[in-house]
């Protein structure tokens, strides 16, 4: 069970070796990994939509989709067929090239980041030695595509949504990158596989700096993929649907797909960096990885079911005034734990972080409106 997928791949590559020259075998090995990822992305997305609807429904005392197949298991297929057969509408004023390219380009980085995610022991499609940086760099290109979509559709709501989305993504991107630095320092590598292996003794989330780093990373990740409570760019009650207002049918489905794949990859990377990746007892490594990832995804849906949307100024304040200084303070705290011996290596970072949280919350204390006193007229 442990090496099930690796064995399948070896089998396929060996079969290819019978008919192909040596260079073809190397190429086919790459192509098999790429195809596996290409198939995995849409599959994950389809069932995440079902999972989201089911989870949200239970939280709102509903049953959720239950007509197509047992427990609504065929619902994603039905949705897909509906999307495919819908009329494809194009606004007459739209910039044709940008309008058509944007939905395709938005799915590309979302799929490409899957290449560095270690799904199991030895199951990274491309174990780059700059893996974490690759992830951050590729997901940062999404902003450009959102610009293309919003500007290309020539719709005021699209432009508003695009502007909101990009200002949000730039702000949280900075914090996201800085929050990973302590982990890179501790692991001494940018490769995702090495980072998972360095957590064999203790998960990074089990240290005070690691836990803080994990929380900051997860929050920023949510903001990066425009998930609730950071879904201002798609706030349907304010600006219709943000940058994909004008898209319908399959093009809309691609935006939707990219969003869900981003949710998956952010959760998967949180697991990889902080929660020990595929490490775990008894069960095969890839199963452990999926269990942890889906638990985090459940938390994402839970947030959506629980938290109201943030206000724009709160959103920016949270990123620049609270999370960013905290992430910066986390770096010396992590360095301390590296250079001190046992009781101090936990206590000193903990003290530093608690003091900085206290100081930051003090300075971020919002304006509390005076309690109104109502007087009855005599």
């Amino acid at each position, binding site marked *: 069970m442990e090496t099930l997928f690796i064995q399948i791949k070896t089998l396929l590559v060996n079969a290819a070796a019978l008919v192909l020259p040596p260079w073809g075998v190397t190429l086919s090995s790459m192509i098999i990994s790429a195809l596996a990822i290409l198939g995995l992305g849409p599959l994950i997305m389809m069932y995440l939509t079902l999972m989201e609807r089911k989870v949200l429904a239970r939280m709102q005392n509903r049953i959720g989709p239950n007509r197509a197949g047992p427990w609504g298991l065929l619902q994603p297929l039905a949705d897909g067929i509906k999307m495919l057969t819908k009329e494809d509408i194009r606004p007459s004023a739209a910039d044709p090239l940008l309008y058509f390219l944007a939905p395709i380009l938005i799915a590309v980085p979302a799929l490409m980041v899957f290449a560095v995610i270690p799904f199991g022991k030895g199951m990274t499609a491309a174990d780059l*030695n700059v893996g974490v*940086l690759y992830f951050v*760099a590729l997901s*940062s*290109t999404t902003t*450009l595509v959102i610009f*293309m979509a919003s*500007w290309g559709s020539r719709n005021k709501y699209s432009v508003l949504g695009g502007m909101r989305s*990009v200002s949000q993504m*730039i702000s949280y991107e900075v914090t996201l990158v800085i929050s990973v630095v302590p982990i890179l320092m501790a692991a001494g590598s940018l490769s995702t596989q090495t980072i998972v292996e360095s957590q064999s003794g203790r998960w990074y989330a089990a240290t005070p700096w690691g836990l803080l780093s994990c929380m900051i990373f997860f929050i920023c990740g949510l903001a990066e993929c425009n998930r609730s409570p950071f879904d201002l760019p798609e706030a349907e009650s304010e600006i219709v649907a943000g940058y994909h207002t004008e898209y319908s049918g399959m093009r809309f489905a691609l935006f939707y797909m990219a969003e869900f794949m981003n949710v998956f990859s952010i959760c998967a990377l949180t697991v990889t960096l902080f929660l020990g990746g595929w490490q775990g007892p008894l069960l095969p490594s890839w199963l452990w990885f999926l269990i942890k990832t889906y638990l985090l995804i459940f938390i994402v849906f839970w947030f959506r079911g629980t938290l109201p949307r943030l206000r724009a100024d709160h959103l920016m304040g949270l990123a620049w005034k609270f999370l960013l200084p905290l992430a910066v303070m986390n770096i010396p705290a992590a360095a301390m734990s590296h250079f001190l011996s046992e009781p101090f290596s936990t206590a000193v970072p903990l003290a530093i972080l608690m003091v900085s949280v206290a100081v930051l919350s003090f300075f971020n204390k919002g304006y509390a409106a005076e309690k109104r006193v109502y007087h009855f007229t005599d």
Partner: protein
Amino acid sequence: MLELIAVKGIYILMVFAAAAAFASSLLPNLFHGALALAAVLLAVAGLYLSLGAEFLAMVQILVYVGAVMTLVIYAVMLTGRLEETVTPSGRIQRAAAGVSCAIFFVLVCGVLLSTNWPAAPGGNPLPSVKDLGIDLMKRHVFPFEVLGILLFAVLIGALAAARREKS
């Protein structure tokens, strides 16, 4: 065979990037120009990969495509209107610029091809990310610090310049 495919890939990338570079200078619509520049930057990141500079390629995508280009396009959207805003420069100016660019290209090209570039025998070893960090912190620590001060100054300066005057 794989090397051959890789070499062809590099040339295709170069042609694509050169076309996009001209597009970014020539396209009348500034938004399209900025996107063409983003394409050039991505292609150059690919060339960095071909030269073994993985870290730099990722930094290029992260900083240039992710941040700088986003800023530029943001400014294009803030200052432009949703309709096209095309103000082509004069024909004489264009011709003069084209001719001087061509002369510049030919002259530098001649210098490039006639110079015997000093080459380390067998090429240099590929530096790891660790080597880069050590080099940054040891040999180039002074420019690194100056750069830090510069970025800080730019941060304050940009805030001061873009701030709305209080009336």
